[in-house]
């Protein structure tokens, strides 16, 4: 049987992949997707522990997280759009007008 520990390991792995993506990708969209991975890692935990504890709050919260992730993406895409318009690309390392 698949225990809660397995889910924990899975979520940790997904979270780590997300972090790895953030650390290595310069493309804003990929950055955004990595964040989504991290949020979904949290969702895995929430759902798994919800089952483990037998209460629903984890699952409900997971739904909220998904909704918020969608909202976040919406805002993020908007910002990425103006980024492209102002800097001619979506490389997050380009805008450095305010270093120091």
């Amino acid at each position, binding site marked *: 049987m698949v225990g*809660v520990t397995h889910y*924990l390991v899975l*979520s940790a792995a997904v*979270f780590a992949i*997300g972090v790895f993506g*953030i650390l290595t990708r310069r493309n*804003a969209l990929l*950055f*955004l997707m990595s*964040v989504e991975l*991290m*949020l979904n*890692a*949290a*969702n*895995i*935990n*929430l759902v*798994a*522990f*919800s089952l*483990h*504890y037998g*209460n629903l*709050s*984890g699952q*409900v*919260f997971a739904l*909220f*997280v998904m909704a*918020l992730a969608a*909202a*976040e993406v919406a*805002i*993020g895409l*908007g*910002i*990425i759009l*103006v*980024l492209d*318009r*102002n*800097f001619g690309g979506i490389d*997050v390392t380009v*805008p*450095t*007008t*305010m270093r120091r």
Partner: protein
Amino acid sequence: MALIELPTWAALAPALVLGATALVLFLIDSIEPEPDTTSPTLLTGVGLAGALSALGFNVWYLIAGTGQTTAIELFGGQLMVDGMTLVLGTIVASVLALVVIASYDYIAEEPHQAEYFSLLFLAATGMTLLGSVDSFATAFIALELSSLPSYALVSYLKDNRGSVEAGLKYFLVGALSSAIFAYGISLVYGATGSLQFDAVASAVDPTALPGILGVGIVMIVGGVAFKTASVPFHFWAPEAYEGAPTPISAFISSASKAAGFVLAFRIFTTAFPIDAVAGTIDWLLLFQVLAVATMVLGNFAAATQENVKRMLAYSSVGHAGYVLIALAALTPQANPDLVLGAGMLHLLVYGFMNTGAFLFVGLAEYWDVGRTFEDYNGLASEAPVASVAMTVFLFSLAGLPVGAGFLSKYVLFGAAVGAGLWWLAAIGAIASALSLFYYSRVVKALWIEEPTEEFEIDSYPVGLYTAIVVAAVVTVLLLPAFGLASEEAIAAAGALV
């Protein structure tokens, strides 16, 4: 008490008013068929009415004692209203009112003003709600509700590369932080099986899965550290504050920070009381480390800036460090009411003085006088009233008794000493002395240096001036009237611990 007649949901009135105002603003905008023909005066007026009525509700409830003896629980304990909620609501509403007035002039030339104001009010709603959350679920939602509009607001000047860059960085760091925060919540849920603060506290079992709970707590600290612009989650702050439209910088650095701290106060006093989690993680030490790092980094980095707004941004990080003392000093021998109350008081006073300071920068931008210290040279001869106000803000921020910042900062340091952390107060003192140096650079530029070139100032914007003067008057008046604020703040803090 007349209040008792009201239904319990009415306790949420401040947040509801703000949310409703946001919707009303949308409505007004959609009534006008042509884009950008809505009267700015109307938008500002509605916004101001909304902000002031929210402020009115908060103050009324504070005076009437709503939820202050026993917290009012709503929605099955997902939300609550107590003194802390109301104090935060007061801070947010006050800052919001100032920002709304100032925005009247600041964004006068910009399109999409109704959206601007609506987003502002949505963010304010989220911040106000952050004071009412009683569960990690609502905490996360309120946090996102305050953050998401903020990202958009920061990049509001969408043809301004600085604004867009600031928005991008704020958003990316914010997204990362909220992911960390959410993951932390999931781990805490995993360790305790609950999302509600009280239930988490009672379910903490130091023997079982200490690692999961510990990692979760550290990650949650990361989430609030982002919101409060504390080291090491502060990286967005200098750039976001610098690039954002200045009223938004003021709003985020004052109100958003306050909301983040109130959330942190509530989480760490209610969900993770130190007695319960001490076996897992000594978060006192964690916050001591963060406080030192934040105070030192914020103030030292601020000392050598050339850009006034960026200096204020770093100083805002530094002030986050001071307020972190309130958490770091919740030691067993501390007087917890005093420690937390001092943090709240500093946030309150900071709301006015920091907003005022940013708005003065906004005024300078309005006049196109430039952004560096040198550009401000001799400005006092052209704008004496605003310069006096700016001087009050800066010296009050530095902890000189021209404003209430003196009292709040020293009460905070005193509380740290009272908690036995004299060394923390000493580091704060060094940072504070350094802050006097860089704040006075602005004062020096304003009053002492000769202007390098003629200023071309042809109008004195009423809105900005009003906001600045009101902020200055409140900053000064809070010095003699500190007792009124401190009574509420300490009582509110006392209810938490």
